[in-house]
């Protein structure tokens, strides 16, 4: 996944980058343009000086040489004029100076002269640098101001969006808390808000209906089941049936029980969803464990060992604590391999229940899903661990599974 950048940061970055590129490009353009302009100016000035010198010579006025600015030499031949940059030692400043130099050859009153005029370049360079620098300075200042202003404005502009986003993050299907969305004068934001409201209310409604439906179905099933059960009980007693029929009727009874247990579990799940377990008290988990182990001994299940240093206390509903422990132990019993040994370790706030198994689960991530089974066992409702997970989620307990040394281990970290 690509790295995510914050919206404001992203727009600011683009803005700053554009500013930088613009400043550089405009400075370069300004540099060359101004440079050309200055050069034209210098050359114009050189030609004009030269013209004046020629004029003076023609009028036979004595023109003195002021090296290095003006130099007049008598020469033999006429040559083409030269315009070039040159470096000449300036004794007054005791350094080499750069000059622009124009040398022309003119025949005046029968005498050929070489007229050289020069212009000190340093001056124009300083101007050039000053212009470019001030340009950059203006740009930077303007951009900083604009950047600050823009960011402020952007934050304000996007504010409804950010606020609504925060609200959406807090959205929970199971809670009935209303979303407090902010309206905006920006059409798109306003539309977004309306759509969010529409979607969330629809999702909530669907969820509520589904929950209600599950609850109703499981509730409505009790009575028909009770009738079937009662009729079967009477069939066994009132009619003379044969052994085969009895076996079949017994099997029906067994499956009615299955449905009954399934219903009970669905009811627990919906009740947790409906937040019907609001009583929270300090529950002694270790004590429940001891009681359960004692109960299971009556079922000839005497291979559960408990090791705990001190009592594990959790704040939760006592009924849910009972279901949690019962489901975890039941799960371990149901999925025990030939080596029948279940160890329960409670330490501080952590409870680990392990049982032996042949191999690790193929899809441990699906373990807590409803009706997920890796072995097809009639006994398993497929809801036991889903209920444990739901209870753990309700109280923010950490519930995890791992497989090592041929043991399936489920651990719950209570709070």
């Amino acid at each position: 996944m690509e790295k995510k950048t914050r919206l404001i940061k992203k727009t600011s970055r683009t803005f700053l980058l554009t500013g930088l590129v613009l400043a550089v490009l405009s400075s370069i353009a300004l540099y060359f343009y101004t440079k050309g302009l200055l050069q034209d100016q210098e050359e114009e000035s050189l030609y004009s000086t030269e013209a004046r010198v020629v004029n003076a010579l023609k009028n036979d006025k004595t023109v003195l040489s002021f090296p290095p600015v003006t130099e007049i030499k008598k020469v033999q031949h006429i040559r083409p004029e030269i315009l070039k940059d040159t470096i000449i030692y300036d004794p007054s400043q005791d350094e080499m100076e750069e000059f622009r130099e124009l040398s022309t050859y003119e025949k005046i009153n029968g005498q050929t002269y070489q007229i050289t005029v020069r212009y000190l370049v340093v001056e124009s360079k300083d101007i050039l640098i000053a212009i470019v620098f001030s340009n950059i300075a203006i740009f930077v200042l303007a951009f900083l101001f604009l950047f600050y202003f823009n960011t402020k404005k952007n934050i304000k502009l996007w504010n409804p969006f950010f606020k609504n986003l925060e609200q959406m993050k807090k959205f929970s299907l199971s809670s009935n808390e209303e979303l407090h969305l902010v309206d905006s004068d920006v059409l798109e934001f306003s539309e977004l808000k309306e759509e969010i409201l529409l979607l969330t209310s629809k999702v909530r409604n669907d969820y509520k209906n589904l929950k209600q439906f599950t609850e109703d179905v499981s509730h409505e099933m009790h009575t028909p089941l009770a009738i079937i059960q009662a009729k079967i009980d009477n069939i066994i007693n009132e009619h003379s049936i044969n052994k085969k029929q009895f076996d079949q009727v017994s099997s029906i009874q067994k499956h009615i029980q299955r449905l009954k247990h399934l219903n009970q579990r669905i009811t627990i799940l919906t009740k947790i969803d409906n937040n019907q377990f609001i009583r929270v008290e300090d529950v002694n988990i270790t004590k429940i464990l001891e009681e359960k182990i004692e109960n299971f001994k009556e079922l000839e299940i005497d291979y559960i060992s408990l090791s705990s240093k001190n009592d594990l206390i959790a704040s939760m509903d006592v009924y849910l604590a009972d279901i949690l422990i019962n489901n975890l132990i039941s799960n371990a019993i149901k999925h025990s391999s030939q080596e029948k040994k279940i160890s329960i370790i409670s330490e501080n706030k952590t409870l680990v229940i392990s049982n032996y198994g042949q191999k690790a689960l193929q899809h441990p991530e699906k373990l807590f899903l409803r009706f997920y089974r890796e072995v097809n066992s009639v006994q398993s409702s497929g809801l036991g661990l889903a209920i444990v997970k739901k209870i753990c989620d309700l109280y923010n307990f950490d519930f995890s599974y791992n497989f090592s040394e041929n043991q399936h281990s489920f651990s719950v970290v209570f709070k």
Partner: protein
Amino acid sequence: MMKYLIAEDEIDLQQSIVTYLQRDGNLCEVASNFDDASEKVALYDYDVIILDINLISGSGLEILKSIKKEKKDVGVIIISANNSLTDKLEGLDLGADDYITKPFHLAELNARINAVLRRGKYGGDELIEFNELKIDTRSRTAYIDGRDIALTKKEYDLLVFFLSNKGRVLSKEIIAEHLWGDNSDLLDNFDFIYVHINNLRKKLTAEGAKYIKTAYGSGYKFIED
């Protein structure tokens, strides 16, 4: 002979309960809605009322309230389709003697009715007697011809369950459900019920009480020869 009122709006279930309970020669009256039930409760005396919480035109809990208000000497067993703890607690708080969730075995209902009756208040007896067999439910001990027989907790429960459902066929499923409740679905098979039943049978037979019979190969029946 006991007199029962079965207040249940599902006629099929109501009639099945009647059929089962009548076999012991008990008198069963029925009420199929709230008004009917209220009227019968007000007018007649019963030993035990089997009361559905969700009657078509009202709540069975209201009827329970009026029974308790008038201090009627009657046992009440609530039937509910709702397996919720709060319903159960509310029912018991209001003075119901027991609470049973749909679906249930008629044998289980019968055992609960007998247990309510035995608590003495409602014309019952804390002693269960059957020929030479005598059970003191207060001290949870069984006697044959006055000699007490040592039973484990499960064997005792099993014996009382059998005695409550004399002459009825009890499948292993029903017995397992009675003895272990919801945990019975943990059992791979009900084989070890044999162990408990056989042990009980041996103890009774040793004293000459051969009442536990096998029915249809895998069920049991407590019956006089």
